């Protein structure tokens, strides 16, 4: 049962400053229940430096922005593509 749960994965994408801190452009992680849990996992893995980035970023799930206030109650599902979107500066 636990094993089957662990087989559920999300793909996390890192850009700009987040990519530099993690040294990765993406990685597979075990499925956490919500974005809030994901933030905790990432903080644990990459420290406060990444935490600060996440605090100033929005998540996008499958290319849809999630509002900051909805992170705690936004559930994730198997194979979701989660991107950390630091403040953008295109143009």
């Amino acid at each position, binding site marked *: 049962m636990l094993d089957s749960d662990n087989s559920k994965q999300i793909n996390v994408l890192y850009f700009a400053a987040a990519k530099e801190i993690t040294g990765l452009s993406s990685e597979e992680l075990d499925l956490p229940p919500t974005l809030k849990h994901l933030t905790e996992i990432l903080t644990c893995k990459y420290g406060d430096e990444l935490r600060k980035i996440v605090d100033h970023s929005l998540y*996008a799930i499958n290319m849809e922005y999630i509002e900051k206030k909805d992170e705690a109650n936004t559930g994730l599902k198997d194979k979701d593509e989660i*991107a950390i979107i630091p*403040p953008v*500066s*295109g143009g």
Partner: protein
Amino acid sequence: MASNNRTYIQLFDGSLPTLDEACHLVASDSAGAISTFSGTTRDNFNGKQVLKLEYEGYGPMAEKILQELVEETRSKWEIQHVLVYHRLNEVPIGEASVIIAVSSAHRREAMQAVEYLIDELKIRCPIWKKEFYVDGSIWKGSCE
């Protein structure tokens, strides 16, 4: 008429097409106005010399957001054809990183549409600019 309106959205790894090519794509004999905006890389930021610039993008989402922006723009103004091109990777100083072109029957619509598109692109499109100075580099965005 609305069904004939064309939209050109594209991210480029190298040089953008010229403004003339962009205008040629959005031109039509029933459009009296073409408005364009070109964002070019500047050689300074707050007086500090910029040596080079790089853009990174979340490509598929950037294109999706641009598509949404164009749809929003069409719902606000009566415009004809729309083009939004953005360049990624290194962009040499003085070259265009973004080109927007809009055609419309009357001038006001094209001009306001272009302004809306570049404003919203800068707010919502997942693309990031890194500026390199003599003494280091910085991802733009958070500190502006």
